[in-house]
């Protein structure tokens, strides 16, 4: 509220100054709402004070530091020009002194706006809470000043408490969250939600079982990103399930990681799963190791290990980049069952082509909820579906309006709708 009252005071002030002066137009300066306090918006009545008016020039005061820098710059330019022209150092210095002598640098021209354009401008790159004066000059075609409107009142750009232009997006975000949370609450209160089968996840148990039969290890690769990527988080969750099955079947589970934080999380997860399965004695921390952060160093290790240990089952769950195909083709050459899950869309083609099962994008994130089988988790999946259906509906409506608009010849209908959605997303 504080900023609003200040704003009203300012408007009143401009009005007073504008009417007091001979100016024919009125200037308004407002703090740009919802920013970090680095911008002011200037608007002025655009009626022309004289027919010869070609452009408006918007000027603001410089801060002390800016005045100093501008003065040094002017002097330095004059000095260099004089030196270039062959003058001695002394006379070049004198030229530089002359250049700044009596120079008034208190006003900085921010921009020039054509007289036909909208009479408004956002002045950016200001210091929060510094005071600025602003004036508008009317210039004719030869850039000579023919009018001056404005005032010398000082204004301060401010950092605001709420980013108003983000509120529509906030509403959408709140709506999406609400849908998901309601679905979770509903599930908790016994509303049964059924989830379709996801083949890749059904196959995990069987693949781990196969490794046990063959007496070979299971290799789990949690991707090459750190814990600050949600794909790694999802991968670790899937690892929890894999470890539980491995503990039950007594299969050896190897987890080489490329980040030590991931190693820590993976060790906790696997240990918890072994304890839960009552096989705490079978847990070996030394099977879960940090290799190196370097993408291809890690891959060189994985490729070598696959060829030496010949795991019967390879699981790739996390963020993968170029290494996806190297892993999948090597796994293939040793005859392993391979199940992959990633949200890196550029790598999905390689996994889809070379692995037995692949969790594509969203399916991968759904995996943890699916695997847990808990009603609350399934509720969140159901909520996700509701949002998806709403998106489809929004899309259909938008396309319908755009089509009708195009047939009826409304101008820019597509830009308007796109702009509306874009505004929500900005």
């Amino acid at each position, binding site marked *: 509220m504080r900023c609003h009252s200040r704003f009203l005071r300012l408007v009143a002030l401009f009005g007073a100054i504008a009417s007091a002066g001979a100016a024919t137009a009125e200037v308004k300066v407002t703090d740009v709402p*919802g920013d*970090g306090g680095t911008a002011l918006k200037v608007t002025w009545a655009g009626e022309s004070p004289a027919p010869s008016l070609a452009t408006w020039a918007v000027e603001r005061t410089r801060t002390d530091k800016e005045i100093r820098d501008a003065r040094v710059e002017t002097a330095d330019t004059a000095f260099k020009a004089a030196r270039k022209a062959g003058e001695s150092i002394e006379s070049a210095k004198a030229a530089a002194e002359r250049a700044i002598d009596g120079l008034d640098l208190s006003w900085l021209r921010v921009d020039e706006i054509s007289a036909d354009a909208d009479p408004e401008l956002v002045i950016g790159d200001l210091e929060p809470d510094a005071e600025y004066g602003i004036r508008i000059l009317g210039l004719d075609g030869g850039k000579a000043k023919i009018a001056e409107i404005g005032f010398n009142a000082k204004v301060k750009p401010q950092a*605001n*408490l*709420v*980013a108003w232009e*983000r*509120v529509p997006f906030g509403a959408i975000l709140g709506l*999406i*969250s609400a849908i*998901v*949370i309601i679905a*979770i609450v509903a599930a908790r209160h016994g509303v049964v939600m059924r989830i379709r089968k996801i083949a890749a996840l059904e196959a995990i148990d069987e693949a781990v079982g196969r490794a046990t039969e063959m007496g070979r290890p299971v290799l789990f690769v949690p991707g090459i990103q*750190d814990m*600050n990527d*949600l794909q790694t*988080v999802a991968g*670790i969750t899937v690892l*929890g399930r894999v470890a539980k099955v491995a503990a039950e079947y007594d299969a050896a589970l190897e987890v080489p990681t490329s*980040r*030590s*934080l991931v*190693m*820590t*999380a993976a060790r*906790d*997860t*696997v240990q*918890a*799963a072994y304890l*839960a399965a009552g096989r705490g004695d079978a847990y070996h921390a*030394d099977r879960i*190791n*940090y290799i*190196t*952060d*370097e993408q*291809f*160093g890690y*891959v*060189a290790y994985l490729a070598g290990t696959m060829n030496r240990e010949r795991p019967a089952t390879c699981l790739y769950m996390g963020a993968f980049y*170029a290494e996806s*195909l*190297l892993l999948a*083709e090597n796994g*293939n050459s040793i005859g392993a069952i391979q199940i992959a899950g990633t*949200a890196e869309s550029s790598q999905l*083609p390689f996994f889809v082509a*070379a692995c037995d099962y692949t969790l594509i*994008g*969203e399916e*991968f*994130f*759904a995996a*943890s909820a699916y695997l*847990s089988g*808990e009603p*609350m*988790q399934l509720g*969140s999946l159901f909520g996700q579906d509701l949002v998806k259906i709403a998106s489809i509906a929004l899309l259909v409506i938008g396309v319908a309006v755009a089509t009708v608009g195009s047939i009826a010849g409304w101008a820019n209908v597509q830009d308007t709708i796109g702009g509306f959605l874009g505004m929500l997303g900005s």
Partner: protein
Amino acid sequence: MKRSIPILIASLSGMVLVLAFFSPRTESWSEAVVDWFNVLAAIAFILGAGSLLKVQLVKISSRSPGWAYAAITLAAFLFTLLVGLFKVGTVPSDKFPTHVWTGDYEAPQATFGWIYLYVMSPLTATMFAMLAFYVASAAFRAFRAKNLAAILLLSAAFLVLLGRTAAAGFLTGWFPEPLEALKLDNLVDTMLVYVGTPGSRAIVIGIALGVAATSLRVLLGLERPYLGGGGGNG
């Protein structure tokens, strides 16, 4: 205690950042958090080095098969770390010629720079280049026209492979004006714009939803990978 405090930390820190997004005064918080994460990740290297050293030392001392390779890894690790941390072979920066610790350890004349130039980068670049070979073997083995879906996958790949080389010119370059749209390179463009784009868009939208829902589960404490495993079975 051991379980509820981490859950509280995760939920609160996440919620605070969501709210901070809507206030310009707190805009810098997310940057600070990213900064802290970087520091934490750098500290975690010590943890990683510990794990690496332990594994290699166990292999060497037990003379298990391949212990000589473990010795090579260990030697390479220690040598690189020492020349890197002590900036061996660097010269000070031009602005501070008397500060010996200001040198650029990645410059070619530093020992660390030599390792980067002649060891790290050829090794990683060659690993990367191996992909060309694996792409070929995948083409032979995996692109089988088993069903309609597989046929579509391989025909799209086929079209792009042909359409993006001189072969496109040989095959369809002579098509007359009315058949312009059927030229291979134009066909590839059409396919990308009207089928490839919505395909990748839908994947992106799906992932965004998946991320949003997973984030919500983390903020609500339903998903707790930091405690060992997902929901109730952890």
